[in-house]
């Protein structure tokens, strides 16, 4: 029970651009799994873009920040592992 609550309370940020196909796929995947996340459009928010580059050490989207753990690209396996999801 406790672990379920932890999953629900995880702080998830997705840094994306509106035109990026892998960002769309990632967000659709999270929605399908019922996971809430904060979608940050780095194409219109240059401060957020800098934050993403600082955190991930690179300049490609998507980047996921799951409770401080950084995942670069749509790495389904790693994201499932961090969110304790069955994939």
């Amino acid at each position: 029970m406790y672990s379920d609550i932890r999953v629900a309370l995880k702080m998830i940020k997705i840094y994306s651009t509106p035109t990026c196909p892998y960002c769309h796929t990632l967000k659709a995947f999270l929605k399908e799994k019922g996971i809430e996340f904060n979608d940050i459009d780095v194409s219109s928010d240059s401060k957020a873009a800098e934050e993403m580059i600082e955190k991930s050490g690179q300049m490609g989207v998507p980047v996921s920040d799951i409770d401080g753990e950084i995942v670069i690209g749509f790495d389904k396996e790693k994201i499932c592992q961090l969110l304790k999801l069955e994939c």
Partner: protein
Amino acid sequence: MNYELIIIGGGPGAMSAAIYAARKKIKTLLVAKILGGQMMEGYQIENYLGVPGLMGADLTKKFAEHLKKFEKNSGQGIFDLEIKEGEEVKNIKMAPDSGEFEVCSDRRIYITKSIIIATGRAERKLEVPGTKEFEGKGITYCATCDAPLFRDKIVAVIGAGDSGQDTVWQLTKYASKIYLLNRYNELRGDDKNLQEKLKKEPKVQTLSEVELIKILGDKFVTALVYRNFRSKEEKQIEVNGIFVEIGSTPASSFVKGLLRCNEKGEIIVDHNSCVTSVPGIFAAGDVTDILEKQIIISAGEGAKSALSAYNYLKNR
């Protein structure tokens, strides 16, 4: 796990083959790294019937929704199609004695009576010094993804074919200056309208008859060096981003030694039936030696390969 047909790939050829196979009630598995393939990164697709001007990701979504109607347990009919996404096929072997095949992915081994290979093409990567250090740190292969991150930055596009020109056009919305490195002395490719637009765009500077020599930087890319083919002169220019569009290679390495391929690595197929050099294995779309690489042609080839597989299974 046993199947009558395994389709390898996730692009238009593979999805179309899967729909045709499912409707023929063939027990089918589709294995793909990601649905959409190269089409996903297409910026705007203007030449697919019925849906002009869609982004590659949106056309992929339409195709995938259509495909999933034929999935087993979709509730929309009695079909026997399974889809496994996020899995990569590494190897195909002939199963001993049975005349069937073993398809080995990075997760499992499947047994099947027939196979359609529709893995398309993979982008060609840069090989100059600096490539490895700066991939993702200024070097990118996906303009539709990353172009917006280069607002007010100086960028270079390597490769001036159709995709390179399209990338330059996307970047005109964001970058302050765009160098287009062209190996030839004029712009090649099909889209004459786009070429005219690029010539008039003050931000764009085409460097003709040049090749990229190396990429420099510290944490991120800061400059590149190119050489002029004629004068042999080398020149360094400051750039923050490098977008790579130097073509693609067929994604056929996992069937090397099993199927006959041409000198480009494309799987040789009979152009009427998509039959390869091994009976029971078919191939469709951009991974094959068909001349034109287009979404609509791949979709047609996929359909053709599934009908051929159906006939093969019936007469087996």
